[in-house]
């Protein structure tokens, strides 16, 4: 496949690996923000190709993983209702709530459907006027344009039985939360390429400047990640802290303005609770007042639900890069992909699941 296969090229990968070895003289901790990047790193064994002194920390780049326990419980509550058709991306179905997950709700008779696109959920709403159709709007900035379009179209077309349960999170506030934490070990970032395809990378300049960290916008295939790491290490070795773009074939500095426009028409910035991290101000998206009638949480009276998280699960520390999955007491024992405690194990992008499935030799 064009624009995929060439970035999985063995020779190019080996060459970048060699270059990284050539320039590395010190130890460095680099965080890849995005779950898709974590997936590729673990799947292709990219850390095997790096000098031992370079440590890759898997960041909170999985919106599935960081969706708060509260929101999962809300989704389960809503999906269990008889008058609801609950639509979601496949990733969310196995994320454990306090008592069960959406897959179990489906098994118990709930009308839970997997969607490829939020517009499919809108279509279901049109075809089922007597039901409330709720879409679990999860994602980083990458998915916001799609979710925004669904709500925008719902209003344009006067569709009254379509609602979204909003769980959008934003990357720059998460990076700032990590950098400003007293436990922070991260010295350089690989920023999420597809998030930046939408948002551009202007927001990262102040962060790079304030915290003196290099930030490299990086793609998702092995060659992309290796080049991104190379660019980041080069900056670290040379004492620079700039924002660079590795993923030039898709990302521009300004991003996609059309998409940003629709997103800001439908959503505004608000506070969001991150599973395992806690509340980060201005780190999420909520519906604008003009679109508030589409908010499922309000409609079903769940706005005030508060839920605490299980004690054994240290996914918060994993997400911040403070601990590795195999340093968790529960890892592989009471917490496995079959019986996950937290979302980092259940989501295929979660650091724990990726570690478990593709563990190093």
């Amino acid at each position: 496949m064009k624009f995929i296969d060439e970035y999985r090229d063995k020779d190019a990968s080996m060459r970048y690996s060699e270059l990284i070895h050539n320039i590395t003289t010190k130890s460095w901790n680099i965080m890849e923000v995005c779950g898709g990047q974590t997936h590729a790193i673990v799947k292709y064994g990219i850390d095997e190709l790096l000098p031992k002194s370079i440590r890759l920390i898997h960041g909170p780049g999985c919106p599935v993983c960081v969706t708060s326990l509260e929101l999962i419980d809300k989704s389960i509550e809503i999906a269990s209702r008889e008058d609801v058709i609950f639509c979601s991306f496949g990733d969310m179905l196995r994320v454990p709530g306090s008592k069960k997950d959406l897959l179990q709700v489906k098994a118990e008779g709930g009308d839970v459907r997997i969607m490829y696109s939020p517009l499919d959920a809108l279509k279901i709403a049109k075809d089922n006027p007597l039901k409330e159709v709720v879409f679990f709007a999860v994602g980083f900035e990458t998915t916001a344009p799609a979710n925004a379009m669904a709500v925008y179209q719902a209003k344009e077309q006067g569709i009254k039985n379509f609602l979204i349960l909003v769980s959008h999170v934003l990357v720059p506030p998460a990076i700032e939360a990590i950098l400003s934490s007293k436990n922070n070990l991260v010295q350089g970032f690989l920023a999420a390429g597809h998030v930046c395809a939408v948002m551009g990378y202007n927001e990262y300049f102040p962060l790079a400047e304030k915290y003196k960290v290099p930030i490299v916008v990086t793609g998702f295939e092995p060659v992309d990640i290796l080049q991104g790491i190379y660019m980041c290490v080069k900056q670290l070795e040379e004492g620079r802290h700039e924002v660079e773009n590795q993923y030039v074939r898709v990302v521009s500095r300004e991003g996609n303005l059309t998409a940003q426009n629709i997103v800001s028409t439908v959503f505004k910035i608000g506070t969001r609770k991150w599973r395992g991290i806690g509340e980060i101000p201005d780190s999420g998206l909520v519906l604008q007042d003009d679109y508030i009638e589409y908010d499922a949480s309000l409609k079903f009276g769940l706005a005030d639900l508060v839920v605490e998280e299980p004690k054994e699960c240290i996914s918060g520390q994993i997400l911040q890069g403070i601990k590795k999955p195999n340093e968790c007491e529960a890892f592989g024992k009471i917490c496995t992909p079959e019986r996950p405690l937290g979302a980092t194990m259940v989501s295929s992008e979660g650091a724990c699941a990726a570690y478990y499935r593709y563990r190093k030799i």
Partner: protein
Amino acid sequence: MCLAVPGKIMSIDDSGGELMKIGKVNFGGIIKDVNLAYTPEAKVGEYVIVHVGFALNTVDEAEAAKVFEYLREIDGLDELTGEEKQG
């Protein structure tokens, strides 16, 4: 956040208006309908990067080659350096 796949636009249907512009996009032989609202400039034959049924951006072929051009430059430099050392 993350899973976006490059595909080639085979045809465009803009009868539904700008925001519901639909393209038939080819992913290695699989053709899917993709919403092109966010890539209004995209043309048939161009590649777009697609996430949850929406094209987020076009793929710039010239820029795409840069990843490998850089390696070629470095290799060229290495060869030069090698010759100088030998010479």
